[in-house]
C-alpha cells in the first residue's frame, strides 16, 4: 500500500490552565492516505479542533510525531510551519473568514501574498480566477463578501483553500453557519473536489455531513473511539437509513396527493 500522507504517532496535547492540566489529545495514532475523505466526529470537548489545528500545522503537539508526506513537521520551526500552511494545507473555517473590503478574487489571492514563488501579478490573478471557477463562482469575482450569500462566501473560502493545490483540504465545521439547502450545496462541492483527487478532512458533529464522507473517525476524551468507513459507522448508517425512509415517505405522500 502507498505511504500515508499523514502519519500521527503517539500525539499528545496537554493544556495547562492554572494548576489544572487538560489532556486534549492522548497518545493518538492516525494514518490518512492520499484522496481520502475523512470526517472527524465527537462530542464537544473531545479534541476535534485540537487535532485539526495540529494537522493544519497551526499548533504543535506536546509530544509525539507528525509526518506530512515525508517531512517531520512536529519538530519544525514557526516559519517552516508557515510555509507548510501556505503550500500544503488549505483551511476552511466555520465563519468563512473573508476580508470584508476585498473582492472575492482578492480574498482568494490572499495566500499568494505570502508566497515568493507564485509568479507575476497576472499569473497570481489567473490562479485565483481558476480557483473561483472551480467552485462555480467565475461570475462573482468582483463581488465583495457583503454582496454574497452564506453559501457563496464559503465557496470563496474553499477557493482560497484549494488555490495552491494543497496536499490536504481541512474544514472545521464548514457548514455550521449554513442552512440545510446551502449545506447540501457545499457538501456537493467537497464531494466533487474529492472526486477530482483532493484529500479532505472535515470536522463535524452532524451525521448528515459525515454521511458524505468515506471514513469516520470518532474521538472521545482525546482518544480515537472508532475509525470506520462511513457506511459501517453505526450512527451515520442509521442516519442515512432514516433519511432514506423519510425520503420514501415523502415521495409516497407526494404520490398519494397527486
Amino acid at each position, binding site marked *: 500500500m502507498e505511504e500515508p500522507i499523514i502519519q500521527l504517532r503517539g500525539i499528545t496535547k496537554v493544556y495547562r490552565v492554572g494548576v489544572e492540566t487538560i489532556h486534549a489529545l492522548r497518545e493518538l495514532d492516525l494514518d490518512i492516505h492520499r484522496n481520502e475523505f475523512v470526517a472527524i466526529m465527537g462530542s464537544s470537548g473531545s479534541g476535534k479542533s485540537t487535532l485539526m489545528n495540529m494537522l493544519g500545522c497551526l*499548533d504543535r503537539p506536546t509530544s509525539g510525531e507528525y509526518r506530512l508526506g515525508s517531512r517531520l513537521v512536529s519538530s519544525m520551526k514557526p*516559519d517552516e510551519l*508557515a510555509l507548510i*500552511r*501556505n503550500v500544503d494545507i488549505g483551511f476552511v473555517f466555520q465563519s468563512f473568514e473573508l476580508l470584508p473590503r476585498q473582492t472575492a478574487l482578492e480574498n482568494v489571492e490572499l495566500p499568494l501574498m*505570502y508566497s515568493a514563488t507564485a509568479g507575476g501579478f497576472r499569473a497570481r490573478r489567473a490562479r485565483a480566477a481558476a480557483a473561483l471557477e472551480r467552485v462555480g463562482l467565475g461570475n462573482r469575482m468582483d463581488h465583495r463578501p457583503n454582496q454574497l450569500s452564506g453559501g457563496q462566501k464559503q465557496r470563496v473560502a474553499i477557493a*482560497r483553500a484549494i488555490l495552491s*493545490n494543497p496536499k490536504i483540504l481541512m474544514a472545521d465545521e464548514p457548514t455550521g453557519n449554513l442552512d440545510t439547502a446551502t449545506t447540501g450545496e457545499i457538501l456537493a462541492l467537497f464531494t466533487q473536489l474529492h472526486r477530482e483527487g483532493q484529500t479532505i478532512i472535515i470536522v463535524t458533529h452532524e451525521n448528515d455531513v459525515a454521511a458524505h464522507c468515506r471514513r469516520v473517525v470518532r474521538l472521545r476524551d482525546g482518544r480515537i473511539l472508532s475509525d470506520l468507513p462511513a457506511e459501517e459507522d453505526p450512527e451515520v448508517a442509521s442516519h442515512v437509513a432514516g433519511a432514506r425512509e423519510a425520503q420514501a415517505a415523502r415521495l409516497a405522500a407526494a404520490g398519494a396527493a397527486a
Partner: protein
Amino acid sequence: MSARGTGSAPRGGLSGFFFLKTIGMALSQIWANKTRSFLTALGIIVGVASVTAVIAALTGLKTKVLTEFESVGAARLYVFPNRPDNVPRSKIPWEKCRLRIEEARAIADQCPSLKGISPLVDITLSVESDTQLIEGMSITGIWPAWHDAIGRKVLRGRPFTQIDVETARQVALVNEAAVEELSLDEAGSGGIGSHVLLGGRRFLVVGVVETLQARMFGMNSSQAEIFVPFSVAEKLLEGWYFMQFVAIARSPEVAEEAKAEIEYVLRRQRGLTKEDPDTFRVAAIDQFINQFKSLASGVTAIAGGIVGISLLVGGIGIMNIMLVSVSERTREIGLRKAVGATSSAILLQFLLEAVTLTLLGGLVGLVIGKLMALSLTFIPGANLEQADVPPWAIAVALVFSAGVGVLFGMWPAYKASRLDPIEALRHE
C-alpha cells in the same frame, strides 16, 4: 500538486506582490477610515507644513539678502559708535563714543585704500510739496561719496557734488517712490526742478534715485526717501542724533586694509592709548552676512525643534491608531497566519501601513507648506519674494515622516506579529 524536494529546507520570502498588496491595502484602510486617519496624521501634517513654510521663508530671505549684499560688492564698510563691553558706562560716556563729522573728514583724508566715505544721519520730518503733505518722513543727510559707497546712481538729474555740501545748498535727491507720493512730476520733468519743504526750508530737487524694493532693515510702510547734503541736515538737527558712516574701499581686495586704516585713524583721532578698547566698530559686509547666517540657522534650529515636537505628538497618535487597528483586525491577522504569513511578514505589513500613513501625512504637510510658502511671496515688503521649499527640506520631511512611522509603528506591528493564530481566530 506541489512537488517539492524532500531534503531541501523550505524557503520563504516576500515578493513585489506582497509590497504592492500591502501598500494597496494600507491605502484602502486609510481611505475606509478617512476621518480617523486624517486626525491621526494631523500632528505630522501640521509639523511638516509649518516647518516647510518656515524653511521656505528663511531660504527666500537668505537668497534675497545675499544677492543684495553681493550686488554691492564686498568692498563696503560701515562705521558705528560702539561702547566696549565690560567697561562701566560712567567711564566711557556716550559723548566719547559717538561719531563726529570731523572724524569722517579725517578718514576721508588719511585712508589711501578708501575710495570714499559718507556720513549717514536720519532725521524724521514732515515734508510738503506743492500739493502733498507727508508726516514723519525719513530724511537722510549724506556726502557725495554716498553714491559710490551705497552704489546708487541718479536716474535723472545730477548727483550731489562737493559744492552742495560745502556751501550747504538747499538741494535734495529723492527716490521714485517720493516722486510718486509727493506728486513731484506735475511739470513733466520727472520731478527734477520741483521743490519740497523740509522743516520750513525750501529744497530744490536736483536728482532722482532708484527706489529700493523695501529697505533692508526696518519696515517703513512708505518707501519714499529724501536725501539732503549733510551740512544742510546738520542745521535741521536738534540735540542728540545718531550718526554712522558708510565707506567704500578701492576694491574688495583692499577692504580689510581699508578697515584697518579707518580703525587706526579713528583711534588716533580719539586719542586712545594701546590699552584703551575701541569706542567704535568698523564692520565689513561679511560680518553682516555671517550675522544673518547665524540668525537664520538659529531660526532653523527652533523650527526643527517645533517639528520634532509635533512629529513626536503625531507619532504617539500613529502608535495609538495602529494598536487600535491591530486589535480590531485580530481575526484577520489569525487568518493571514493560517494561510501562511510568517511573523516577520505580519510585522512588515503593519510597519508598512504605519509608514504609508505617516508618509501620506508628510506629503500633505509638504503640499500645505508649499502653498504657504507661495502665499508668503505675495506679502508686500516682507522680502520673501523668493521664498521656496528647497529640495533638501522635502527630502528631510519625507525621511522624518517615514522614520516616525517606523519608530512608532514598531510596537503595534510587533504585537500583531506575535499573535497566536488559533487564539487570534477565536477572537471576537
